[in-house]
């Protein structure tokens, strides 16, 4: 405050605050054309050897998955380990697991877009592709779980000879609409983001094709030009088009955000709307959504860390990107940990003996091993990311991301199986174990997932080229690198 004599005393020296420069999203000041070249060369070039090996392995695993599904259909659900009292086993666990994986893709593409997180631009394409492929894997399980698969179309409101309609009071039917909407909207959003990049590939093919006159290379070039060009819809990068495009993108992001929150909420209603102790809890929707985002980020990191190393994309998917994703993992992992604790608290505080028994039984009953695997993978392992070294060492992040994937699968196993295996009467108690068919069908879905993902890497730009360019200083008309005149003080 002012001095007693009335003379103001200057307490603090005036400083011009130092301007903190953010680490760039594309390293080493690469020009715009470099981004195009780096991403398109993956699609245009030959795939490395490891890709071929990985593709063959994934493809065979996928065939195994389809083979076991065929065996299931021709023989009956008895080939699975389902029996009284556990009638929802691995199929439902796998369904919730895969659908949860998808949620990170939508979070990155939609929610981070609404929050103006520019770093999403180099990871959103891959994450959205992951979403779509994960939802495909997820969609298989409820379909084959219905028993008589040839009647699965009864789930949809299609007129039939019996004159009956689906029963919309059931959350299982809400799920049909939630998951199919989720798949469709994710596909639309993904496709819309692809349009300018498909045009990039189309134009590059057109110029490359000028050098070819005839022969096989020419035919392949023409075919690719036609295909990429067809899906690029005649995009010319017109600003009048960009204006509508950006608005539509914003609206799709705005629609996908409540969608992604509703999808896993509705998946959780499959459990929460029932009366089973361990399932009948109001905490489920937010707890499921947080867990879904958590598991999805685990899978994004599992896929992206090898991809950026193998295709030399470290300057576009930087350590900073990985670090930020690790921070999302700490946040969502902690929410999940809190939910585990809160479930126990409410089981005790709610005063319902059956509820309390269900939870004690989870931690110390016959499935204690599943519960503690879940706790160590989901609650303990993400806490390592409080240390900067853990967040910035790709191989270490990769290992933790695998733990997150495992932990989140076990979470669903714990929820589904431990709540069912003790019914109210001890005569209805049982111990559920999967059969070979259960296990190998699930393993096979990873083959399906990886087959689709490898094809995506092979044929589509893995990074949203136009969006990644848009967040560089070279794209900013008010930045010197974007061609703006140097500022008056002319620092450099």
């Amino acid at each position: 405050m002012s001095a007693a004599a009335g003379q103001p005393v200057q307490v603090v020296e005036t400083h011009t605050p130092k301007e903190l420069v953010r680490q760039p999203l594309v390293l080493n000041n690469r020009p715009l054309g470099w981004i195009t070249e780096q991403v398109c060369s993956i699609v245009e070039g030959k795939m490395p050897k490891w890709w071929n090996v990985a593709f063959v392995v994934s493809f065979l695993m996928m065939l195994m998955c389809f083979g076991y599904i065929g065996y299931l259909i021709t023989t009956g659900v008895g080939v699975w380990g389902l029996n009284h009292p556990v009638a929802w086993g691995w199929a439902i666990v796998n369904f919730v697991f895969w659908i949860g994986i998808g949620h990170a893709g939508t979070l990155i593409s939609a929610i981070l877009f609404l929050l103006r997180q520019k770093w999403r631009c180099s990871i959103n394409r891959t994450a959205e592709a992951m979403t779509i492929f994960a939802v495909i894997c997820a969609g298989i399980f409820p379909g084959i779980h219905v028993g008589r698969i040839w009647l699965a179309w009864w789930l949809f409101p299609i007129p039939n000879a019996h004159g009956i309609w689906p029963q919309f009071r059931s959350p299982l039917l809400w799920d049909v609409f939630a998951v199919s909407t989720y798949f469709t909207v994710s596909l639309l959003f993904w496709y819309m983001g692809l349009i300018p990049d498909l045009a990039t590939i189309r134009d590059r093919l057109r110029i490359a094709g000028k050098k070819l006159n005839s022969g096989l290379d020419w035919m392949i070039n023409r075919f690719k030009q036609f295909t990429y060009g067809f899906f690029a819809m005649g995009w010319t990068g017109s600003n009048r088009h960009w204006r509508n495009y950006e608005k539509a993108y914003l609206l799709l992001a705005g629609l996908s955000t409540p969608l992604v929150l509703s999808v896993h909420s509705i998946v959780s209603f499959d459990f929460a709307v029932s009366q089973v102790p361990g399932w009948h809890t109001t905490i489920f929707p937010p707890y499921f959504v947080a867990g879904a985002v958590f598991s999805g980020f685990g899978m994004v990191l599992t896929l992206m860390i090898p991809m950026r190393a193998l295709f030399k994309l470290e300057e576009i998917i930087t350590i900073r990107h990985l670090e930020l994703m690790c921070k999302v993992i700490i946040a969502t992992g902690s929410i999940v940990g809190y939910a585990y604790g809160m479930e126990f608290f409410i089981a005790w505080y709610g005063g319902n003996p059956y509820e309390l028994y269900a939870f004690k039984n989870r931690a110390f009953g016959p499935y204690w091993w599943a519960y503690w695997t879940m706790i160590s993978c989901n609650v303990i392992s993400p806490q390592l990311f409080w240390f900067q070294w853990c967040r910035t060492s790709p191989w270490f992040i990769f290992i933790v991301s695998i733990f997150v994937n495992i932990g989140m699968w076990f979470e669903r196993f714990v929820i589904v199986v431990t709540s069912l295996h003790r019914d109210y009467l001890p005569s209805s108690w049982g111990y559920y174990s999967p059969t070979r068919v259960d296990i190998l069908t699930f393993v096979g879905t990873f083959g399906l997932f990886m087959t689709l993902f490898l094809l995506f890497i092979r044929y589509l730009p893995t990074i949203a080229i136009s969006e990644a360019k848009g967040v560089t200083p070279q794209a900013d008309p008010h930045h010197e690198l974007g061609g703006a005149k140097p500022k008056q003080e002319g620092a450099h």
Partner: protein
Amino acid sequence: MSQPYAIIAEYDTPADIMAAAEKVRAAGYEKWDVHTPFPVHGMDDAMGLDNAKVGWFTFFGGITGLTAGMLMIYFMNKVDYDIVVGGKPLFSGFYAFPVAYEMTILLGAFGSLGGMFILNRLPRHHHPLLTNDRFAAVTDDKFFVVIECEDPAYDDVATRALLEGTDPQHIEMVEDTQ
């Protein structure tokens, strides 16, 4: 039959094309456009474009989805196949909400994407600009101003002079070969 379609000017940086767009707009052209590899921030203002109207398509898509979802469930569970399940009412907005909500989003999303296509007059696979070799770099790292010859203010000499005054890298005429 080929006839001149437009004059195009190529620029290297977003700042250059922004300055050029302001000049072309000031000269009173109507049938002109700026083509860029990514949306350039502030270009809509530089070109004097108003707000995009895609939102109306989204809105009507969403309203249609919500209404159709509610009516469908009402018809199926209350009118055409009215059977009591678990003592619950035949129709209630609460149990119908999740499905109607998903349909709102579904049709809203189709509205957004479809609206974008309709307002942009896409798909249009045979555009004169797509035959020009230099223009192919628009999806890579070059920026173009395009003034169509059909513009009432277009003049072979004056328009070229205007574009030359904006310091472009290159100026070229594009033919319509259809």
